[in-house]
């Protein structure tokens, strides 16, 4: 590109494009909220809004991990199964030891182990992450069923519920947890070397290797974190239900992936922001909530979720093509 045209196009940058995109996401969210309010006045009550946030926090916590995995150009479909297995396991540890912290740590450790397995399959065994985590998704779900005999485990310590149902001031504990984790990982993604490496690997893994970035190690770390986040969401869910359920989190992975992609994290990696992903999660949360408020049968929820994920991937493709077009035009 010649110097003149560079000067002329100075005003255009990826950052602006993304923030423009974020603006349209916020508008979509607002429109959705307005429609929900018109259809059912209950939507705009503070109780319900807290409810939406609490429900969304499950997707959001697991979503923070998923954002990093997808940014690196990989995917993790095992988060739903992990939610089940970790939920069952942590409640079992809780009942066996009577210690909430111990149950929490054990759940987290199991999550990390799952992540390590995923990470090793993707990096060392070099299995495509879609297939590898599809496999572990089935295995982990199976283990959850086998180990419990497909029966849920009731938590024997009532205080455990606080994690899922308690409040700090007016805010539900899961929401507060989500906000803290969001703040931490926003900083990590955008202000630390680790975050930059994730974007670089997702953007061009060859160049990352040639520049001496420890690609494999970083991928494993991100997978471990991803499953650890799924484990946290698992324990929040188990606490809310006061039990560990082997069939928890069925289809959860699709919701998380849909929310993240809807929020502008590109499936090919390297593009998107955590803020955008959070707006995507809220859109999905509001949609879920509205369907419940409107008494729509849960079978239709499945249909709606399926449609959302297809829409999200379609939008991702269109965005990428548009960006590509703009780049081609700018460099020609």
């Amino acid at each position: 590109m010649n110097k003149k045209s560079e000067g002329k196009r100075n005003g255009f940058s990826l950052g602006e494009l993304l923030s423009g995109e974020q603006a349209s996401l916020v508008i979509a969210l607002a429109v959705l909220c307005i429609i929900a309010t018109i259809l059912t006045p209950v939507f705009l009550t503070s109780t319900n809004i807290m409810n939406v946030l609490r429900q969304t926090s499950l997707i959001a916590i697991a979503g923070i991990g998923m954002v990093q995995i997808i940014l690196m150009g990989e995917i993790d479909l095992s988060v739903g199964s992990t939610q089940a297995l970790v939920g069952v396991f942590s409640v079992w540890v809780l009942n066996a030891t009577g210690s909430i912290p111990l149950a929490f740590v054990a759940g987290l450790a199991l999550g990390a182990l799952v992540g390590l397995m995923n990470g090793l399959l993707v990096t060392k065994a070099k299995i495509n992450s879609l297939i590898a985590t599809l496999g572990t998704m089935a295995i982990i779900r199976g283990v959850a069923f086998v180990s419990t005999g497909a029966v849920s485990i009731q938590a024997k310590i009532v205080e455990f519920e606080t994690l899922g149902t308690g409040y700090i001031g007016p805010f539900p504990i899961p929401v507060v947890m989500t906000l803290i984790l969001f703040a931490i990982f926003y900083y990590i993604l955008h202000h630390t070397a680790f975050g930059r490496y994730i974007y670089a690997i997702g953007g061009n893994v060859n160049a990352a290797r040639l520049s001496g970035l420890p690609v494999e190690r970083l991928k494993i770390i991100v997978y471990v974190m991803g499953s650890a986040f799924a484990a946290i969401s698992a324990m929040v869910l188990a606490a809310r239900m006061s039990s560990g359920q082997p069939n928890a989190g069925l289809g959860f992975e699709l919701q998380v992936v849909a929310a993240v992609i809807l929020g502008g994290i590109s499936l090919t990696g390297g593009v998107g922001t955590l803020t955008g992903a959070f707006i995507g999660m809220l859109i999905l949360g509001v949609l879920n909530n509205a369907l419940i408020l409107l008494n729509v049968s849960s079978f239709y929820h499945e249909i709606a979720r399926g449609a959302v994920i297809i829409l999200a991937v379609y939008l991702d493709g269109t965005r990428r093509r548009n960006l590509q077009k703009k780049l081609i035009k700018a460099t020609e």
Partner: protein
Amino acid sequence: MDTSIPTPTTSVRNPATVGDAPVIELKKIHKKFPGVHALKGVDFDLRRGEVHALMGENGAGKSTLIKVMAGVYDFDGEYLINGETARINKPLDAIQHGISVIYQELNLVQDLSIAENIFFGRLLTTKTGRVLWSTIYEKTAEYLADVGLKVDPREKVRRLSVSSRQLVEIAKSLSLNAQVIIMDEPTSALCPQEIENLFRLIERLKARGVGIVYVSHKLDEVFAVADRVTVFRDGELVGTKPTKALTTESLISMMVGRELSALLPKTAPVLGENVLDVKGLTTEKVTRISFQVRKGEIVGFAGLMGAGRTELTRALMGLDRRTAGSIMLDGTELPPNDPVKARDLGMGLVPEDRKLDGIFPDLSVKHNISLISLRELRKRFGISKTLENEAVDDMIKRLSIRTPSSKQLIAKLSGGNQQKVILARWLIKKGMKLLIIDEPTRGIDVGAKAEIYKIMDKLAHEGMAIVMMSSEMPELLGMCDRIYVMAGGGITNEFKASEATQETILSSCID
């Protein structure tokens, strides 16, 4: 699937009608992209049986003009073919008018056979739809013989070398009765021998009356092959002249708009101790490589396509598995297969394929430059924006990277500036001792080339050891202190640059 690409009926394969009737005539062509006026009313014409070189720096508008001729872009202006206004709105229109483009990256389907590629989209079939394979193979063999390629028409394109693939593309053009073949940087991946073959083929095509548009950066080639030269600069026509009326200097000054007294600024080296000592390095692709590089020295590697130069860069960085041998970098033994350690000990690699292996297209210039030095730009918990901005801005100034801001996406810079950004990525890092540069000026315009050479010379003077792989002889002879020649994955010869000539190097390439 049968005949979606009809072959033109007017054959031009009869006796050479080298005349003055232009096959293609473009008048006052304008092409605008949002914010960019890529072509500003340029004229261009191509006669039968002539080679017309199209030159200019990156961004001059050459690629845009090719795409206008090929029907990829719409445009404003007049497009005449054989004196008549042609409606070229899509690539198929151009093909039907006998205009073929051989793009730099080649457009063949890797997993199909040569014959299937040549008859792509127009397989010959019986009425019932059975494919007439024997006829297709026969015809393909004829076309291949025509371009001097001796391979089985059933061979998969994936198994062919780049030069053979190019010949298949030319054969395909001929099978479409092309009266015009547009070649975009056709020699960028060819060795001298293959280039000569291509030139001989071009001569034969000329004799048949085929007009050739030859887009290239390489001055010597243009002088060797072109009848006329047209130069573009910033989307404007600088001029069209017969090659005979031009000298290297006058052509360069047409291209850059200023006299370039010397492209190669190499000054006398100040050599220090050995920085790199490689002994018996062996991977799957290279065998028993031993050589040394001293502080402040520029060492070049010559060789044909597939001689193992790029593979050697990968072996040095530890990207390919080392099976034998040792690498000492400034007195420290490099552990095998550990590119992270190689980098930390001060070895850097500027790869051959910028787009595929070099740039992070979604990141800004700033983030591209600072990526591997973030640990040095850290303050407490995160990256210090101040330190990062200072270091990056300093690099942009030092290497005179032309970008409107450090926040610009790297994908929007020209090839030369992208190359500088990748150099900057390594130079910003503290303690760099050895820089491996694979094809330092591939796909870079003349002006930026000279700048890259100047940077390399300056680095060497500051004590950096440099290894460069190159298939451009003038560059090797002009920049290096010593030159190793590679063939078949091993080193076959070593020259002092002062004692080497193009001929001596070439002859040991082939051995």
